[in-house]
Each structure stands twice: as C-alpha cells, then as structure tokens.
C-alpha cells in the first residue's frame, strides 16, 4: 500500500518540524514546580513540565542540563517559559540563552525567584509572557513537511510474552517504513536489549558502530549485575513475569523487534541530539519508561510508538504516544475502543489480521497523528511528569 510521504507540521526556525505546537512552563529544578503549576493554571494552553530533579546531584548535572535544553528545543515546543529559583546549580537565564541559540531563536522567557522579586512576582511576569506566547502560537499554521523530517521513538512498557510477537514487530514495521523514507527511528531501553548484542552488531553499518552497540549493552549488563547479583537474569518487572516472560534475554528478543530490520547507523548518549542522523539510531537509556521517554524526546523525537502487553497507560505531556496493545484480552480490559489503547495488535492472534495488515494500519494511524489526530493518552490527559534519568544519588 502506498502511503503519503508528507504530513502537515509546524516548521521551526532551526529547520526541524513539530507535529504539536506547545507552549510549556518548565522548572530549572524541582523546587520551582509549584510556581510552574501556578503559571499553567493561570494561562490556558500552557503545559506544565514537572521536572523531577535538577539540583544537588553532581554526577548528573551534565546529563540533566542537556536533557532540559533538548526538551525545550524539541520542535513540538513553540515556546518555553523557564522558571529558576536562584540557588540551584544552573542559572535559568543562561539555560534560556542556550535554548534560544540551539533552536535558532525559539521564543523563551526565563525568570528567577531570588532575582526577580520572589515567586509571586515571577508568576506575574511569566503569566504575561506566556499569554503572549500562546497568542503567537495560535498564529502558526501547519505546512507540508516530508516524512524524512520525522524522528520516531520506539518504546515498550509493561511487556508480556505477546509484545515480541504482535506489537513490537508492528512498531518495527513502522520504523522500517520511516527509515526507508529517509527519516530517523530511535531504539533505546538498553537493559532490555541484553542478549541481542550480536544480532544488533551484525546489523550495524560499520564494525565500529557494532562494537559500540555491544559495549553499551555489556555496560548495562554489568550495572544490572552490580544491583541484582545472581538475579540479573530476572531483570523483569513482576507484571512481565505474570505475562509469561521468564528471562531478560527472552524479553530482549521481543524488545529488539521494535527496531525492525533496518541497519543500525549510530549510537548516541541519553538526550544527545539526533541532528542530521538518519536511519535507525540506538540511544543509551534505561528500561524505566518515564525516564527513557524524556531522553528520547530531548534527542528530538516528535512522537512515540509504545507497545504494552499489560496495559501501561503512560503518555508524555508534549508528544503523542501511540499505544499498541499486544493482546486483545488486555486491550478490552483497559477500556477497549476509545479506552487507554490506540491499536490492538492482538488482532493478529484473535481476529486473523496479518502482520502486514497491522503494520499498514499502524503507518496510516501514525500519519493521522502527525497531522493532528489525538492519541489515546493525549485524549485522556495521561501526560505525566518530566522524569530524568539518574545513576547517582543526591547529596
């Protein structure tokens, strides 16, 4: 089936294309979250991005800074209000300047509680700026853009033994289609690739990329062993095991299907910008979905395809998340049509749909979502917080 190779998106100053047009209020650290909530409550159309970290953890400062800047630079964001408190590690106004520079002049307003007259005055200033940003955002029109400008994030959460048979191959089908049209797809959740390192290394563009894939997966295996010892083979959530998954390798052999059959072109750090990279990219990041989705969004992905066997409801505040359920039982258990899930991949097993038919349906659905159709997490308001990956403890 021939699909459209363009969609209608929001063209940004840096040449990237958004599929949503958000104004966000975001904290420079979690101490600003109350103020962020007040600004969002006062200005309809402003999305609060609740930063779960941001200070007092020296081991994470570089990663958190890159993540915050990357989130604000994502093309789904029209403008950002950045709230600092003053005593935190990074200066919010400096971060604001970095966002403006990297995004080619995206509207940014930054205020700092301890410099700008306290929280109440900061709220007033930010509300005023936010009202203007929302009014300006409404004037931006969707214009035609090629599928090659898409960066797809692939994700799985609350997997069961059907995930690797139905939903993940469907995501892989879409990923291959995006790649064949010159776009970019990101595979991450590295601990959930343990045992697939040889498969991915063989598919890598050069032996050097293959070695980087292998060493990244080994690094995670070692990290997991330090935490779990002899239980490393059960790097699984309780629900995964109830859902029929026995070992981390079994889960990973299902997870790897999200990357389809495309060549692995490169390996990037958590939140590192995709930039001009095309094809299938592997991003360092945890299996814990809420932390991983923020990293992929900061890297530049405009949308997620997210498989689940157990019925995980997670969305993202500023990106569409297409939920693909691995089995019909769960699909109907979490609301059926117009419930928590977008697509029932279990139809392959229960309704005689072929994997190709499911893949084609997913591509059409993705194009509709790029053009503005709300995913179920968007329609249901399941956005959540901006959780950021940490590997060290705060002091």
């Amino acid at each position: 089936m021939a699909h459209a190779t363009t969609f209608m998106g929001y063209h940004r100053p840096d040449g990237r294309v958004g599929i949503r047009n958000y104004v966000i209020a975001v904290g420079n650290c979690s101490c600003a979250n109350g103020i962020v909530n007040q600004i969002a409550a006062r200005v309809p159309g402003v999305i609060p991005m609740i930063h779960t970290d941001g200070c007092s953890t020296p081991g994470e400062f570089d990663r958190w800074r890159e993540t915050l800047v990357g989130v604000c630079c994502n093309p789904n964001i029209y403008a950002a209000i950045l709230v600092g408190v003053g005593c935190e590690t990074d200066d919010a106004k400096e971060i604001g300047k970095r966002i403006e520079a990297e995004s080619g002049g995206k509207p940014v307003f930054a205020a700092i509680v301890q410099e700008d007259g306290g929280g109440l005055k900061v709220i007033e200033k930010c509300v005023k700026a936010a009202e203007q940003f929302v009014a300006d955002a409404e004037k931006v029109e969707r214009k035609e853009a090629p599928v090659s400008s898409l960066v797809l994030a692939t994700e799985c959460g609350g997997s069961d033994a059907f995930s690797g048979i139905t939903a993940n191959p469907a995501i892989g089908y879409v990923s291959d289609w995006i790649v064949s049209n010159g776009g970019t797809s990101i595979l991450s959740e590295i601990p959930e690739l343990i045992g697939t390192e040889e498969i991915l290394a063989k598919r890598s563009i050069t032996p050097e990329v293959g070695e980087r894939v292998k060493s990244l997966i080994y690094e995670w295996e070692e990290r997991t062993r330090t935490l779990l010892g002899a239980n490393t083979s059960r790097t699984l959530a309780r629900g995964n095991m109830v859902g029929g998954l026995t070992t981390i390798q079994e889960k990973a052999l299902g997870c790897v299907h999200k990357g389809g059959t495309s060549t692995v072109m490169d390996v990037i750090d958590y939140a590192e910008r995709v930039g001009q990279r095309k094809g299938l990219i592997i991003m360092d990041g945890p299996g814990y979905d809420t932390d991983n989705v923020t990293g992929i969004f900061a890297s530049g992905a405009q949308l997620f395809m997210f498989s689940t066997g157990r019925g995980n409801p997670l969305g993202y505040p500023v990106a569409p998340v297409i939920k693909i359920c691995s089995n019909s039982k769960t699909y109907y258990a979490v609301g059926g049509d117009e419930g928590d899930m977008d697509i029932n991949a279990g139809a392959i097993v229960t309704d005689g749909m072929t994997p190709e038919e499911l893949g084609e349906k997913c591509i059409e659905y993705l194009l509709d979502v790029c053009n503005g159709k709300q995913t179920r997490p968007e329609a249901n308001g399941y956005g959540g917080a901006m959780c950021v990956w940490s590997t060290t403890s705060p002091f």
Partner: protein
Amino acid sequence: MKKGIRLNSKDNVGVVVQDVNAGEEVDFGNGLVVTALDSIALPHKLALVDIEAGSYIIKYGEIMGYATQDIPVGRHVHDHNCDSEKLMK
C-alpha cells in the same frame, strides 16, 4: 483443541494463545500437537519436546535461557525450570 504459536522452527518452546487446562491438546501448526501437562495461562510457554537439564531454551530461534531441570514435553516453562544466569557475560 487450543491454539499455540511456534515462532521459529528451531524453537523448543511454544507460546499458548489461549488459556489451557492440564490434559488439553494445543495445536502449534504444521501437524505439531502437544498435550499440556499443566494448566497454562496465555501467553506463557510450554515445552514442545523433552528438554534435558542444562540444555538451551530456544525461542524466536535464539537462546533465551537454559533448563534448570529436566522438562518433559507439555510442561509449563517459566522461572521454576528456566534461567539465563550462566549466559551472562
């Protein structure tokens, strides 16, 4: 007869796609029918052949673990008889 899936011809385990009671037959296609020794909930695995302790458990045509005890054909395969600890680097 209940339905199951064998994902790859190398696999020695299959996935049941319907809840199965002990004693029921499960059809894995291509003439492969296995009688379940245990009640098995979808989408858990059962042994398609007798698997000796220490042998690899194969799914998707790849190694996903090894048998920690002898597993007769038709038995539920899960964490009580399958692990992958020794496969770790």
